């Protein structure tokens, strides 16, 4: 699309510029424009991500040698709890859907906004409220929560720390997530542009759709669960307390009924991002569109049935171990299919290596490590040994940071020129990527070994035989931090001083690239008629 597509009189800064009479912060925090809301989410998420990373670095520093007393035991316990709560509930779960989902969903389907723009803004306010309440729980009352992000009973009922406030924060955040999911499902059903059939949806939208269903149907279980923990602490209700006839394992069931599917809330949108980026840089239609879309739905649905594989050592029935181990292995298949489809898309393409593709390849590698080590945990017997050890810590950091994190960074580098109308320095971005990749592996790989050696997680101190791995891991954390700093600095510089990017720097074929960068407030001057699929590149594709 040429520059003539820009509406006459449209600001070159598109939705980023405010009307004359309503500038400033208010025009952002009360805006119902999905792109502004998406950017607000992105800003909050990245800020909290930085906070979470800082806590992670502190923990790694504390663990650099055995017997180190940089942090008091109670402080360490609070730090890993807060690191988990921030990273899971405030960063990773909303990460891609709330930020890029909001920005891109209406653009991808050719709509002027989501179905319920005011509800969308309300979701963000709820998110902000949840974040504030979470912060309040850290700095007030009898000390930051020290339960781990899982809030397992009966410990979470007994500890005197500020758990009651923390679980309310989780409840509020859950509500925010539900409303976003509900909004997205309605939008995808109702607001697709003429000609935008289900089979012309981008795979990113498909992944958002699958994710949204998990958000709507699983999150309420978390809501009621944390409400009950709150009620046990504050109202003296006794539903999980073993001293009063309660069954603490039921808490774990309820918790994981949400929190396992939450892993798919985290990873599916990243897979969607990857599915959208690969064809663009291979200049080739996505391989197996139907299978990828279908596997998103399969992962979301079967993935909701495997929760108790977090409980193989909990003392639940052996039959349940059998059933959930089996279901867990079944859900591995659609993930494998996605990987093979991505590889086949690269096969015989005409590949141009740009930062978004680098992060995408990083995603494939890291997610493969995380996914494949997950198989060890799915196998009932092998899981017993590695459960609740550093092996798990390594596994989920590979999946969530290596997967969702790199997916998010890929999305940031891919859609950056669209959102800001500028380009970052691509060489610096590539350098940052390699440093991040190196740092992640030095940080997390030793944890697999530590876990196999028997090092349990959530230990503020450890016996001497684990010292070497812990030291390497801590060094890795510094490499990773440098890489992240470089990447964020580069993006920030791009926002400030980057060269103008033009409407479609990558030569991509989804609808958002037909708009000027940044897109104008109302998106499309008129609702487009869609006549081709999201990956049907023009015959002479190369833009340069």
């Amino acid at each position, binding site marked *: 699309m040429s520059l003539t597509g820009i509406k006459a009189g449209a600001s070159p800064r598109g939705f980023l510029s405010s009307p004359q009479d309503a500038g400033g912060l208010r025009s952002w925090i009360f805006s119902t424009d999905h792109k502004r809301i998406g950017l607000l989410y992105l800003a909050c998420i990245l800020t909290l991500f930085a906070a979470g990373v800082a806590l992670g670095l502190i923990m790694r520093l504390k663990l650099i040698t055995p017997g180190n007393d940089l942090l008091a035991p109670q402080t360490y316990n609070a730090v890993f709890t807060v690191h988990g709560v921030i990273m899971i509930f405030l960063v990773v779960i909303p990460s891609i859907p709330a930020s890029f989902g909001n920005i891109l969903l209406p653009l991808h389907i050719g709509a002027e906004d989501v179905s319920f723009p005011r509800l969308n803004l309300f979701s963000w306010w709820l998110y902000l409220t949840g974040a504030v309440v979470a912060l309040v729980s850290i700095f007030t009352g009898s000390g930051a929560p020290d*339960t781990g992000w899982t809030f397992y009973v009966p410990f979470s009922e007994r500890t005197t720390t500020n758990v009651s406030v923390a679980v309310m924060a989780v409840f509020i955040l859950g509500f925010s997530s539900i409303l976003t999911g509900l909004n997205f499902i309605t939008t995808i059903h109702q607001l697709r542009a003429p000609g935008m059939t289900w089979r012309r949806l981008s795979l990113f939208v498909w992944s958002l759709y699958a994710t949204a269903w998990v958000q709507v149907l699983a999150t309420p279980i978390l809501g009621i669960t944390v409400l009950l923990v709150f009620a046990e602490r504050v109202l003296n209700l006794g539903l999980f307390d073993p001293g009063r006839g309660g069954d603490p394992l039921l808490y774990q069931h309820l918790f994981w009924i949400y929190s396992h599917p939450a892993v798919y809330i985290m990873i599916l949108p990243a897979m969607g991002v990857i599915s959208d980026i690969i064809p663009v840089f291979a200049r080739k239609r996505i391989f197996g569109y139907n299978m990828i879309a279908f596997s998103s739905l399969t992962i979301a649905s079967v993935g909701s049935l495997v929760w108790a594989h977090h409980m193989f050592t909990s003392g639940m029935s052996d039959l349940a171990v059998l059933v959930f181990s089996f279901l867990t292995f079944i859900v591995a298949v659609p993930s494998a299919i996605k990987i093979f489809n991505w*590889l086949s898309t690269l096969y015989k393409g005409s*590949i141009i290596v740009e930062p978004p593709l680098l992060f995408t390849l990083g995603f494939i*590698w890291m997610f493969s490590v995380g996914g494949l080590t997950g198989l060890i945990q799915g196998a009932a017997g092998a899981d017993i040994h590695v459960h609740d050890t550093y092996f798990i810590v390594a596994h989920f950091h590979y999946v969530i940071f290596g997967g969702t994190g790199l997916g998010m960074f890929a999305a940031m580098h891919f859609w950056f020129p669209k959102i800001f109308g500028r380009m970052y320095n691509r060489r610096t971005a590539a350098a940052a990527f390699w440093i991040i990749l190196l740092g992640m592996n030095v940080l997390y790989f030793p944890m697999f070994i530590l876990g196999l050696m028997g090092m349990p997680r959530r230990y503020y101190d450890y016996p001497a035989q684990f010292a070497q791995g812990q030291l390497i891991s801590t060094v890795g954390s510094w490499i990773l931090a440098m890489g992240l700093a470089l990447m964020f600095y580069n993006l920030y510089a791009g926002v400030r001083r980057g060269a103008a990017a033009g409407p479609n720097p990558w030569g991509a074929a989804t609808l958002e690239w037909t708009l000027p960068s940044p897109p104008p407030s109302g998106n499309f001057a008129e609702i487009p008629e869609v006549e081709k699929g999201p990956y049907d590149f023009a015959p002479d594709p190369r833009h340069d």
Partner: protein
Amino acid sequence: MNGQAVNVVQSVDRTFYFIFGTSAVILFLIALATIYFVIRYNHKRHPVPADFDHNTLAEIIWTAVPTLLVLAMFYYGWQSFRALRGIPEDAMEVKVVGRMWSWSFEYADGRTGPILVVPLGKPVKLAITSKDVIHGFYVPAFRVKIDAVPGMTTYAWLQADRPGDYEIYCTVYCGLEHAKMLSRVHAVSPEEFESWLAQGQGRDGKALLEKHDCLGCHALDGSKLVGPSLKDLPGRQATLVETDGRERQVAIDEAYLKAAIVGDKGGRVKGFEPSMPSYRGQIPPEELQAMVDFLLGRQPGKPLDGAKLAEEQGCLGCHSTDGSILVGPSFKGLFGEKTTVIDQGREVEVLVDADFVKEVLANPGKRPAKGFDPVMPTYPDLTPEQKEALVGYLMSLGHEKHSH
């Protein structure tokens, strides 16, 4: 024996290596493919992309093959899980109790201890539970892990084939000292095990403190762990913080210690978390008494050493035992004699007997000795036993003079 003699560790490890090997190959192929494609089909080398977007045969293959592979993994995983769960019928049962933040192991004869002693070559069945929150019982060397859940008993088993010590960890986060909830499996020859078991449980106070897991949180050497140290308690005071934040001083005496053990001391000790679980109804009275006696420095069955007590309480700083006059009258020859005191401004003769000594200890300013400054402090913290012991001590010094 009964088909259960399969080596669990080998079974688990076989599953692990099978999955690990398969995964490593797959990972290698994926990584290789991405790198190869990016180089081989780089736009410089391969400017025109091929135009295909599906291949039914390939898709069927790469759905079917992973499905078969994961089903095989599932099968092996389940087999090794069954090996872990299939407890041999001839196993010796040991009860395992987790509590914040220590393990305790109880054998069939009621003997308990903080480490798990097992005989070589014999399967040991562990019946595991918890007194407070969920803990995780983990022995990496045996690939054994199962949660200790309050209100429930879970089971595991292990069999040691080589003598030695194997670490036990807690794997479910359980609060402040989760990282220090360590113990070990001590594997010894069956003969050694039998003789160890035959020794029976120690019954002295220290052994009992160990038995009831006190020493996981309270050191005997003065160091500060989760709870205050139990060293040199007699005559000390504790600062309690009540729930409303007010602080008060209490004497560490028998009543206090007993209340503290059952969770009734009415506040937390300043500088510590109120994390001590209540032992109400869990410790037989005679064991409780033995522990308290030990903590208060009493020899069980023997009276307190009055001389030592007088020294510890600082009496001898003002009262000599050799007749010389310091700040107060000498203890030598004091007991059993008449002495002159000031009672409400008047000089009165009183007999120094047990009642008088106790009165002075409780309220020295009431009837101070004539010729001395009324500077003696009160000793409200002394227990009745301690007072008796001091009386006895004074009596012995007085008796000495009479015998002259």
